């Protein structure tokens, strides 16, 4: 009897684990996703990058991935399993895999690791991230132009610096158009639970927001926005299919170029640790087409994007006050990356209290 249960459990475990190719002489590049590779959002973005990598270097490398790996103690086992299975380079693609990655990396000094969106690196652990806040600033500009109620709703996941930074960037973008713009924030305390995300979207819509933006992974909020006849921004992937008349634009993660560059470095033996933080100009994120908006808003969005690309505009440029009224950035002063990566305060104009 125990054998049957064991067989069941093993087969279930195997189902979550796929290996794309299995030639022995190829270098193995591995990925760990927090969600499903078809989540329509964040993890799908990383999987698009993996597929780009296979297309570009498929004759020299093979890829493997683990999906739906929960953040927490399970993550360490997943990372270790990858390291043990002969991966030369392991991309751990979610913030919550940070400590697990560092811990496993100590045990496997010959394996290279790259951790997305974190801040801990080591001899064999590099970090990489995209300046998503650039896209969120543009969204804020569009939101303030498009909103009739002057209030946008923000579905947030967890109060980590990455998310807080996004909220602040969105607000600064909106304030550049309408200094009195308001933001209602709901923390879902999950990355992907379509039901809860939909509930949050409904709650915000019921309270009079007419623009929704999300930092969670499913298309459920987009569906709710479509149903209620309001506008929304997609997250991580182009979500236009879920709201053809609803989506204004979406920040699309395009990790492919980075994955190819780093894999090539491993193949050449030139890989080095580092802390990479690329932006719109590097192509690590792109904006989905600006849709469902009048031409003047579209033009303003495109101009804002061009200014950010050229470096003329940094979303976090003073004068900016913190929520408590104290000065954060003096006139013309640009925030340093360290403050952004550890961001634990709201900018002035956000009424809500940041959960600590």
């Amino acid at each position, binding site marked *: *009897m125990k054998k049957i249960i064991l067989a069941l459990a093993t087969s279930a*475990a195997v189902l979550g684990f796929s290996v794309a190719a299995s030639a022995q002489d190829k270098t193995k590049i591995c990925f760990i996703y927090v969600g499903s590779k*078809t989540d329509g959002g964040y993890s*799908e973005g990383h999987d698009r990058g993996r597929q780009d990598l296979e297309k570009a270097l498929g004759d020299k490398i093979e890829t493997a991935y683990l999906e739906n790996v929960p953040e927490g103690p399970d993550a360490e086992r997943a990372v270790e399993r990858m390291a043990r299975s002969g991966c030369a380079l392991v991309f751990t693609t979610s913030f919550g895999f940070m400590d697990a990655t560092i811990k496993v990396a100590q045990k496997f000094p010959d394996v290279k690791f790259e951790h997305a969106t974190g801040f801990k690196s080591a001899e064999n652990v590099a970090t990489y991230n995209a300046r998503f806040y650039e896209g969120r600033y543009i969204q804020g500009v569009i939101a303030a132009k498009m909103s009739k109620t002057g209030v946008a709703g923000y579905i947030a996941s967890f109060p980590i610096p990455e998310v807080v930074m996004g909220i602040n960037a969105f607000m600064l973008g909106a304030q550049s158009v309408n200094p009195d713009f308001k933001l209602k924030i709901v923390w879902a305390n999950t990355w992907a639970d*379509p039901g809860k995300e939909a509930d*949050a979207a409904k709650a915000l819509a019921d309270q009079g927001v007419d623009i929704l933006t999300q930092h969670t992974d499913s298309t459920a909020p987009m569906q709710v926005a479509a149903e209620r006849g309001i506008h929304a921004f997609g997250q991580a992937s182009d979500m236009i299919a879920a709201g053809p008349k609803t989506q204004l634009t979406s920040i699309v993660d395009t990790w492919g170029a980075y994955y190819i560059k780093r894999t090539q470095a491993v193949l050449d033996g030139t890989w080095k640790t580092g802390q990479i933080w690329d932006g719109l100009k590097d192509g690590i994120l792109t904006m989905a087409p600006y849709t469902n908006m009048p031409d003047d808003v579209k033009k303003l969005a495109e101009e804002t994007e061009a200014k950010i690309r050229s470096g003329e505009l940094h979303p976090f440029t003073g004068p900016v006050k913190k929520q408590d009224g104290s000065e954060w950035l003096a006139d013309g002063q640009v925030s340093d990356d360290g403050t952004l990566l550890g961001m634990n305060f709201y900018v002035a104009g956000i009424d809500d209290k940041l959960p600590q």
Partner: protein
Amino acid sequence: MGMLEAILLTVITAATPLVLASIGELVTERTGVLNLGVEGMMVMGAALAFSATQLTGSPYLGILAGIAGGALFSLLFGFLTLTLVANQVATGLALTILGLGVSGQIGEPYAGMSGAKLQPIEIPVLAEIPFIGPLLFRQDIIFYLSIAIVAGVNWFLFRTRAGLKVRAIGDNHASAHALGIHVIRTRYLAVMFGGACAGLAGAQLSLVYTPQWVENMSAGRGWIALALVVFASWRPWRVLLGGYLFGAVSISQLHAQAFGIGIPSQFLSALPYAATVVVLILISHNRRTTLINTPASLGKPFVPDR
């Protein structure tokens, strides 16, 4: 539409899958079988319902696929625990893991698609009642079914001869067997009823709640349903109450956040669990009635002597 009405509509959508999965598990547990695979059966129902709807274009065939899928999947649990007398806890857990994996495979071709929402059915005259009408009588068929099933189960368990047999098996399977009641056959039926209800709950997730398929989309609702059964001390109407209470507090906390009342969101997120447990414990505080309601042979294997 007023704010309260809007909130209550959201609550109904959030509570229905919990109520459905709980009432199914309640019947299973009333026969003395503990099936921890609710989460797995629910997510299978969600995947099958969405796939079948996409394939056939009919959400009603989708609902049937969800129900049938949940029931068939639970049959695997039944075979392992009732015929092969495997450990119920371990098998139930395995069923959940298996369900999460298999449903991912089934749903993969349909991931990222937006499905059409199951349309509400308006009940003539009643739907015109102000306030209550749009809330309770302009709903989709799964909501009506959920209420009917709770009422039906309550009637069946406490008003029919067959229901008495079910409770007898749950309390003491050896005595029930000695009286000539078919213990294993009844348990098979109860397990499949539990599977069918969990499958229907899953169909509600992928056709009504959020008309799409996302892996793991049940997101722990099966576990909440399991807990509700225990805290409702195996009483059908209390399961309904518990499900709606949980839904109401979950939605209220989102509204509280959007209002910006300044209470930490982590605390608010934990509130539905705490509130539901406290209320159900309070109404079930009489230890004697609780003992009477607890199926005494819950989780214990039964091998009929031949």
